[in-house]
């Protein structure tokens, strides 16, 4: 750096100047380095576009299993045996016979009465540990606000009209203007809306979609699940021009259209420094969004508060299906760890709404005759929704001694008194879950009924397994002196009461549950390492068309080598860790059905297969279905307003589709009314259009 050398000879008098000089040089050096980094990132991206082969499911799965190495794949690609994943074509290459659709026949679901403005105050339990959307710590409770519920996809599933037409759910346009489906070639063509802009003003183009695939296939994001998903489930992406592209999937599954429209492009220009240090470099940078809300740097007060701000120039603000939504100017989050404190904060008017899903909050802590409710300052709302249900229940590890006996597992079913919990603890508000996949509409088995609590049937089942005598504590023992006692682990501290109730009930049938309450992370770790006996837990499920079986029930997710070549169970098999097969089911018949289900392209056939699988799972009896919460409940201050119909069918909470608004000037008026003894008409609403019979 010659400038520095020259100035170093000058007198100390010029120290100040010198420092400034050095600073400028450092800046220059830094921008040089940035330039190099950008060039490198650009080169890596282009290399990926030019060389990434299309693996498809078979090869990708073989690679995951370790049957094929990266070198072999490279060799195959070099020999030209593999198709390229990224293809650059011209508009002339587009087929002529496509039928373009844009979902414009669907009804809008937001209320035209909604008014923009105001700040919505709410609280989170933990401060987000990153603003990245992928990578370590990104999958947090805050992610919906920077990704799932705010960012636009190419097309969105209609949350009210959940019918399946022509094999597809109904979609309304997001970033896409229109789309066309070519089932025969398993390809979806998409035209991007020319008006689409990122929140920093840049255009959204097909390059951003290509970049998204590159990004999610890259190991630099430190997310194996994304790497696998975006390599296995898509086989080709073709760019026709700035605004037109197509994506090809390996199997024409019934929800093929959704798999493409559900993609969200990423701003390539923002990730121009993408490299191996992505996780650290982008930790606190807000990704420009296609959605309505942005996070400004000055609103990130780490560990304390964070706020979303409505982008007044949001490109989609007047677009059908998007107008009259995202009405709050700001959404302000503070951190309150303790639920009881959050509730007090709500009562004080510091946060605007509070979830009342648990019965003691709905009935005891905020009863209808509570002063705030009776005076109409706070409204109570119940909204029955219709969506796939989280799988709350007992997950029995069938690789454990005694639990590997189906009779004992069946006995555990009959000895689990969910009825009492539902009736006396949940006060009849929740309902019993019956299958492993409730809430999937026509993909949910209509006839299977969970086994009810029945001491006699439980004792019979245990007796078949050799447990006939009771010891002095009333627990069954067999001839070899083994006790019928299992550890029942959970990470849900707020639901531990359920387990202590069921513990006492199970003892009636001579079954001892040892209740173990761990913190959430420790409990999840235990179950992921397959160290549990019985786990009370749930998988959260998205509103997909049909349930997934491979992850939770295929034998490759149960044991390292589940079967010997002749099909007999391998005596030396070891449980697979870090998979979702928590029951360690390894059943060849089930495996075959799962594989057919995965490969099937017909909704009718998949439904039949799903039912067959549910019947096998019911027979296997290693999952005790728990409860279903068929609604969400919320209390909100009177200044919060909602559409007539309150929310949409698929919603899980009011901040998912953002249909509510704040009546201007009302906050001040209501808070003032609170100090006087003014009363309003009480608001206690139950919206039960989608209440099951």
């Amino acid at each position, binding site marked *: 750096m010659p400038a520095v050398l020259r100035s170093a000879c000058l007198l100390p008098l010029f120290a100040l100047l010198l420092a400034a000089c050095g600073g400028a040089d450092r800046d220059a050096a830094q921008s040089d380095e940035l330039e190099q980094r950008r060039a490198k990132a650009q080169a890596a991206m282009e290399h990926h576009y030019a060389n990434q082969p299309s693996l498809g499911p078979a090869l990708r799965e073989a690679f995951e299993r370790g049957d094929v190495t990266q070198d072999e794949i490279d060799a195959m690609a070099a020999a030209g045996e593999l198709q390229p994943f990224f293809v650059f074509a011209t508009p002339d290459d587009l087929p002529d016979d496509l039928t373009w659709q844009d979902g414009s026949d669907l009804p809008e679901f937001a209320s035209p009465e909604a008014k923009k403005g105001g700040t919505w105050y709410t609280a989170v339990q933990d401060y987000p540990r990153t603003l990245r959307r992928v990578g370590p710590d990104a999958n947090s409770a805050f992610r919906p606000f920077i990704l799932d519920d705010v960012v636009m996809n190419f097309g969105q599933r209609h949350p009210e009209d959940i019918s399946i037409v022509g094999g597809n759910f109904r979609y309304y346009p997001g970033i896409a203007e229109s789309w066309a489906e070519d089932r025969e070639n398993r390809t979806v063509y998409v035209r991007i809306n020319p008006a689409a802009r990122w929140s920093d003003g840049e255009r959204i183009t097909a390059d951003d979609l290509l970049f998204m695939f590159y990004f999610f296939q890259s190991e630099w994001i430190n997310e194996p699940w994304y790497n696998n998903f975006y390599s296995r489930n898509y086989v080709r992406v073709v760019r026709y021009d700035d605004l037109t592209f197509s994506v090809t999937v390996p199997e024409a599954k019934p929800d093929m259209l959704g798999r493409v429209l559900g993609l969200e492009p990423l701003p390539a220009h923002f990730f121009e420094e993408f490299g191996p240090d992505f996780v650290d470099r982008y930790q606190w940078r807000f990704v420009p969004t296609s959605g309505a809300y942005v996070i400004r740097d000055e609103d990130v007060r780490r560990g304390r508060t964070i706020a979303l701000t409505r982008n007044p120039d949001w490109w989609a603000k007047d677009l059908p299906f998007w107008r009259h939504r995202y009405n709050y100017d700001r959404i302000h989050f503070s951190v309150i760890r303790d639920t009881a404190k959050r509730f007090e904060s709500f009562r004080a008017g510091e946060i605007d709404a509070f979830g009342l899903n648990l019965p003691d909050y709905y009935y*005891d802590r905020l009863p209808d005759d509570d002063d705030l409710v009776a005076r109409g300052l706070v409204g109570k709302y119940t909204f029955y929704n219709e969506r796939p249900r989280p799988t709350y229940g007992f997950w029995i590890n069938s690789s454990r001694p005694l639990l590997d006996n189906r009779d004992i597992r069946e006995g555990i079913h009959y000895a689990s008194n969910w009825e009492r919990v539902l009736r006396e603890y949940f006060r009849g508000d929740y309902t019993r879950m019956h299958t492993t996949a409730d809430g999937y509409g026509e993909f949910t088995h209509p006839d299977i009924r969970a086994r009810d609590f029945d001491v006699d049937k439980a004792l019979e089942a245990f007796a078949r397994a050799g447990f006939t005598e009771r010891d002095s504590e009333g627990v069954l023992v067999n001839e070899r002196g083994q006790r019928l006692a299992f550890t029942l682990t959970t990470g849900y501290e707020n639901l531990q009461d359920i*387990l*202590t109730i069921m513990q006492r009930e199970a003892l009636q049938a001579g079954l001892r549950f040892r209740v173990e309450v761990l913190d959430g992370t420790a409990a999840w770790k235990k179950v992921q390492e397959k160290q549990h006996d019985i786990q009370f837990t749930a998988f959260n499920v998205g509103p997909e068309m049909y349930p997934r079986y491979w992850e939770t029930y295929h034998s490759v997710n149960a044991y390292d080598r589940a079967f010997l070549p002749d099909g007999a169970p391998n005596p030396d098999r070891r449980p697979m860790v870090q998979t979702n097969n928590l029951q360690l089911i390894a059943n060849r018949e089930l495996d075959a059905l799962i594989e057919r289900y995965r490969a099937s392209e017909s909704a009718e056939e998949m439904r039949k297969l799903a039912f067959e699988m549910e019947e096998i799972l019911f027979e296997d009896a290693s999952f005790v279905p728990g409860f279903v919460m068929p609604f969400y409940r919320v209390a909100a201050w009177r200044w919060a307003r909602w559409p007539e119909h309150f929310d949409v069918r698929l919603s899980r909470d009011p901040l998912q589709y953002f249909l509510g608004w704040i009546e201007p000037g009302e906050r001040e008026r209501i808070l003032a009314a609170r100090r006087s003894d003014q009363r309003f008409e009480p608001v206690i609403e139950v919206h039960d259009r989608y209440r099951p019979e």
Partner: protein
Amino acid sequence: MRLNPLTLRKLKRFREIRRGYYSFLILIGLLGLSAVSELIINDRALAVRYEGAWSFPTYGPVELGAVYGLEGTAARRPVDYRDLAAHFEAQDVGNRVIMPLIPWGPYYNDAVGGILRAEPPNFERGHYLGTDTTGRDILARLVYGFRTAMLFALAFTALTYLIGVTIGCAMGYFGGLFDLLFQRIIEIWSNVPFLYMVIIIFSVIPATFSASARIGILLIIMVLFSWTGLTYYMRTATYKEKARDYTAAAQVLGASTSRIVFRHILPNTVATMVTFVPFTVVGAITAITALDFLGFGLPPPTPSIGEMLKQGTANLTTAPWIVSSAFAALVVILLLVTFIGEAVREAFDPRQFTLYK
């Protein structure tokens, strides 16, 4: 046993300190009652008269309904003695069930009005302090929780004194290298953070361990980290006594080390050590309550005061009777022990008997 006249005078002095003495009597009474709490607060019958014969199920094995001629499913499940009482009454053939004074166990979920929730005190139903959030009787849980806490505290005190006094006395009596070595060991050991150790060790204990085994482990961990405090007092006291003429005289007379330690030094240091006992007990009760409050203590659903405090603070506005019962119980126990401690210290204070002018 013949007591030293000096000790007798100390005991007499203790009796004269009314507040401490009565506290002592009350605490002993409570301990005595809690030792037989199964007979007073329990959901198992005290006595059952069936077909002319009496049986006493309180301490026996779990009985199935068939024993009392119940039919159907009830014959094959453990007897619910409250239901049995109602059944016998309906039969009216001379069979009867005598329930304890308070007919609730610490684990019984009583759904008042068909709903499991915290119910305020209800004398008619026998919930004198109300129920907790799953319909369990608070008085029953307090009594059983108190028993566990007291047993724990007493065992803790006995063990810490055993270790602390032994090592402290040896340090003071032998002195020299032994003393030096143990001082360093204690310095290092007492710097290990106790709470972290409890949390770490409890995170690796498998849940297959029974509740009593877990209490035992908790006890051992706490003792291991608490004996160090006592050694220094004991060491000083021993040094002081060893330098006295009577010890030298005993040595000259040819008394063995064990005789000197046990007959001469230990009895003379008792005064110092005894005054710490009640405060050690208080410390132990507070510690186990705090650990339970934080969720690192006894496994659910074991009754404990700490767990009740936790539940009570979470339901402060809707069920104030939970936290007030637990809090009052804790205050009473700690006050009693503290009063005893004050009285013991005063009674054993040498200034009562010597006058320096």
